[in-house]
């Protein structure tokens, strides 16, 4: 009985918010929910879901560790007659009851457009990415696509910086190697916050615009307070979590739910 | 069966071996005949073990050639040697402590079919071998649980379980007492009859004179001479070996032994440790040398370990200078100025990978450091240098790695590190194990000198002549019990052996 939620990690602000929202909404609606953390390991996610099946949950909410490998877990659950809702990352090759998530590609495009606008249509841009995660790949692709429309903006460096510490080192090194950089896009809040620190420690304050993705409270604050952190594409994990629980309750009651429930990303810039 | 005395089975010519800058062998030669025991005699570090390891395929010579049974012989690993009919019992024990005696003895030669081992047959075969050799070991015991002496017997069993034309025994008796050594000598006799050539290394002169047919003397990596046993005396051999005359083996006492009325510095009463030893009592005065004799496994080392705080007594008392003490760790023992030269130098005595200097200064480190624990390197170096000179330790430099010295010289380092602490009570467990006669004499002189200065010395030894030659009194142990404390008038080999085999006085 109840809902089982399997999340990719609990050490990333986005998922912190998501978990908080799921727990809060479940409490508000008086349904039981338990959360497992896959720690970015698909094998653990599969095991977590198998354990949910043994325990006999009614509905499973999952944020897949990746879009391809989650198929097995979905198949397992469906074979056991349990409906699955995915949040944040869609599953390829399986039909789940509902997918709730940001259109990352569109979000990436928005980030690119914001960057172009901030740079006045020309300059050199670097990207901190995380190629192991499909949603990030999509948003980086969107960003590149938008930048490609501006011939005077060049992407000079793309480096991977998964944790905040890695992103800091990577950003510093990119700035060192390419002193002409005027913009950095970080795939998530951690990457962007680190990039903003790197800009300062390289003595480039005011010369490099940083744009992030996710828009959790720490990043929102930074956009307000930090002159270099000019904007962030905002996801709404609170809405996603709430919607996921509502959808789960509907499924439990046998109601129809939409197959896709996109959450439109916002663009957060400094309050003028 | 008649054996041709002239036929040569193994011939070594112009051999040299260098380890980096160290010339372990310079000009070595050897000619070994079947059915004879050929002893190699030489000081510690003369190059005996190096030569044997070359024969066994462990090292490759820098120059020189070997002919075995008429064929050129250049083993590149121990398997080649075994295949060519040569087997070796190594000086430094090379057994696997995590395995049983049987598994060690028949290592790589386990009875098997299609790669599958027949464990029952393994135990049976090993037991047969051990029985045939007449060795007192149980083949199902874990080697790690055995005493040094028992391990030595296992090593022998392992080496002799291979049918070979040439058998090398590198100091096989260095940790055996006479009765086990006797068993080995019988085995050697049987091998001789079968026409096997035996290369034998030992520092025990009596034993050499008894066993050998031919004796080759080596010095400083070079061949000196080969003699027929019947043509030489011990004194001549020693002179050839050390390059000068040596008249006596045990230095005489200059200072009289302390009177029995003097107060003991150490008094042990009813000391027991379950399953190891029981009700051990003795005392020792300053300046006294108290010998401890017993067959292997009689419990002497265990008593010493307990006195030193490495093991805990289950009953009994220990008093130092009349006051009862409880020593529960080596730290406390050292604080009470007890020193302990353990019998297993490789495992308990030395840090083989470290320099001669830091091994020597190891225990006395407090004396070489200032207020905040900073080392006084010059003082440390000078002290180490003095010990190296005093004990004539043969080492290239103070920075040489202890593990690259020869066995006897390693033993001297262990002694040196305890001498530096100026102990009040010094326990010596087999202190001359593997030490050459010349160096032995030096060590005996030092023991005498320490005693003269008032150090109480507990001398554990399995060499009866040594115990008798050095001690003022002898504690004899058998199966964990003290069977006698022999006074000088009782200190004859016959009497002491009598007590050691379990007959209480």
């Amino acid at each position, binding site marked *: 009985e109840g809902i089982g939620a399997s999340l990719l990690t609990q050490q990333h602000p986005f998922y912190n918010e998501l978990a908080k929202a799921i727990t809060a909404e479940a409490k508000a609606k008086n349904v039981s929910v338990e959360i497992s953390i896959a720690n970015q390991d698909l094998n653990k996610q599969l095991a977590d879901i198998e354990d949910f099946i043994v325990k*006999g949950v009614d509905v499973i909410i999952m944020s897949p560790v*990746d879009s*391809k490998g989650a198929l097995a877990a979905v198949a397992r659950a469906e074979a056991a007659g349990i409906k699955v809702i995915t949040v944040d990352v869609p599953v390829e090759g399986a039909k789940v009851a509902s997918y709730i998530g940001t259109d990352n590609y569109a979000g990436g495009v928005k980030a690119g457009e914001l960057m172009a606008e901030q740079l006045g249509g020309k300059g050199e841009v670097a990207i901190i990415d995380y190629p192991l995660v499909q949603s990030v790949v999509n948003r980086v692709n969107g960003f590149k696509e938008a930048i490609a429309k501006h011939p005077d903006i060049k992407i000079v460096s793309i480096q991977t910086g998964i944790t905040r510490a890695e992103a800091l080192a990577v950003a510093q090194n990119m700035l060192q190697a390419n002193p002409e950089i005027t913009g950095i896009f970080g795939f998530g809040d951690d990457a962007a916050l680190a990039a903003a620190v790197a800009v300062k420690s390289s003595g480039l304050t005011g010369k490099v615009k940083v744009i992030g993705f996710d828009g959790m409270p720490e990043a929102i604050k930074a956009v307000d307070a930090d002159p270099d952190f000019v904007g962030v594409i905002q996801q709404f994990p609170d809405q996603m979590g709430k919607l996921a629980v509502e959808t789960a309750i509907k499924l439990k009651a046998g109601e129809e739910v939409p197959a896709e429930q996109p959450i439109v990303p916002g663009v957060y810039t400094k309050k003028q | 069966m008649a054996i041709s005395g002239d036929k040569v089975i193994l011939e070594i010519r112009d051999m040299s071996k260098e380890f980096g800058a160290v010339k372990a062998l310079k000009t070595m030669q050897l000619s070994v005949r079947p059915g004879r025991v050929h002893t190699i005699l030489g000081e510690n570090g003369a190059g005996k073990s190096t030569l044997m390891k070359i024969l066994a395929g462990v090292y490759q010579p820098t120059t020189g050639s070997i002919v075995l049974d008429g064929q050129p012989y250049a083993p590149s690993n121990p398997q080649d040697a075994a295949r060519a009919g040569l087997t070796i019992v190594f000086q430094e024990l090379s057994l696997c*402590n*995590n395995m049983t005696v049987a598994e060690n003895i028949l290592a*790589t030669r386990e009875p098997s079919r299609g790669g599958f081992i027949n464990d029952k047959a393994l135990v049976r075969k090993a037991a047969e071998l051990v029985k045939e050799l007449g060795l007192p070991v149980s083949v199902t015991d874990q080697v790690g649980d055995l005493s040094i002496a028992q391990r030595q017997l296992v090593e022998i069993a392992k080496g002799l379980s291979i049918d070979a034309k040439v058998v090398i025994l590198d100091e096989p008796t260095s940790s055996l007492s006479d009765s086990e050594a006797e068993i080995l000598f019988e085995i050697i006799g049987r091998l001789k009859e079968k026409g096997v050539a035996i290369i034998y290394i030992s520092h025990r002169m009596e034993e050499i004179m008894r066993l050998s047919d031919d004796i080759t003397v080596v010095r400083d990596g070079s061949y000196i001479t080969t003699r027929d046993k019947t043509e030489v005396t011990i004194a001549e051999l020693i002179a050839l070996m050390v390059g000068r005359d040596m008249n006596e083996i045990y230095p005489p006492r200059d200072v009289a032994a302390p009177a029995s009325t003097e107060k003991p510095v150490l008094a042990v009463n009813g000391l027991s440790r379950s399953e190891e030893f029981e009700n051990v009592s003795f005392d020792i005065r300053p300046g006294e040398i108290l010998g401890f004799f017993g067959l292997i496994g009689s419990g002497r080392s265990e008593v010493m370990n307990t006195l030193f705080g490495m093991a805990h007594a289950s009953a009994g008392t220990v008093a130092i200078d009349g006051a009862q003490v409880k020593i529960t760790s080596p730290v406390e023992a050292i604080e009470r100025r007890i020193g302990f030269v353990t019998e297993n130098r490789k495992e308990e005595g030395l840090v083989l990978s470290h320099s001669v200097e830091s091994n020597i200064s190891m225990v006395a480190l407090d004396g070489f450091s200032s207020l905040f624990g900073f080392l006084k390197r010059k003082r440390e170096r000078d002290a180490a240098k003095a010990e190296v000179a005093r004990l004539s330790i043969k080492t290239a430099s103070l920075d040489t790695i202890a593990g690259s010295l020869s066995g006897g010289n390693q033993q001297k380092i262990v002694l040196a590190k305890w001498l530096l602490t100026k102990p009040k009570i010094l326990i010596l467990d087999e202190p001359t194990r593997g030490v050459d006669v010349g160096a032995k004499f030096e060590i005996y002189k030092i023991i005498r000198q320490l005693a003269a200065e008032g150090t109480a010395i507990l001398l554990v030894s399995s060499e009866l002549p040594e115990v008798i030659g050095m001690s003022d009194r002898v504690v004899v142990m058998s199966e964990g019990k003290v069977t006698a404390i022999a006074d000088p008038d009782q200190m004859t080999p016959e009497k002491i052996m009598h007590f050691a085999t379990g007959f209480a006085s």
Partner: protein
Amino acid sequence: MSDKSAASAAFKQVMKQYGGIFLSLIVLCVIFSVTNGRFMSVANFLNILQQVSVIAIAAFGMTWVILLGEIDLSIGSIIAVAGMVGAQCFAFGMSFVPALILTIAAGALLGLANGVLTAKFLLPSFIVTVATMGIYRGMVSLPTNGAPAMIMEPSWTAIGTQSFIGIPIVIWVVAVLFLFNHILLSKTKFGRRAYLTGGNREAALYSGIKVDRLKIIIFMISGVMAAISGVLLSSRLFSAQTNAGMSYELDAIAAAVLGGTSLAGGVGTMIGTLIGALIIGVLNNGMNMLSVPYFYQLIVKGLVILVAVYLDVRSKRAKQ
């Protein structure tokens, strides 16, 4: 009657040798059974065995390596490589058997590299396999640039999803590999040589064991076991992940050490390793069943490992 007494003798033997750790396993099972009604069921038991399969098989290989006194930190990366090789084989239109052979050959090859670097170049295995852990992880990401690769080949995914006589194929694979490794280690000359070499490398050399060759073969065994783990993992997941198996080396080592394998070399058994892997599996599953929050799970898991190893060490010391 004699059957029963043989069984009880076998049980006593297991208790004697694996007392500490076996007890830990039983205690865990009892606790979880009492606190959650669904824990003790055939379905959940099969569940646990499947979940533990990847770690158990990798741990069999790791046991060999640790027994030699070496370590293999690259197995997590090899697990990922295996999945990716499989996926690429199918992408190139290969059929099941050649794909499987290539995958296992890849594991053997990567193990060979570890072994040669350790045995022939005389580098410490810890550093060799820290390095190859990175190298192999980098390699696995090249074909897809880090993205996962789907595997839709039914014969491959069948391994992870189908059953044979009512028991999931995955469990059969674990059982067969357990027997294989157990027999190889405890009944053959090869196994005996591994023990001897792990106990005293020098003595092994003197006894004429080809220590280098042995070491290389054992790293290859480790690579092959990791590759088979990778096959199971990718078949269970219908896909190859470039970050698959990350840090599984630590779980595999923990399983082996829990099972009494000594990191100093020379001591260890496959039965012990299997029990060790089961402890980890039961713990993960049981805590999930009790809905223990993730971070508390980390803490409890660490504590249980400490307690289990402690009990084992103590029971072994008491015996002496």
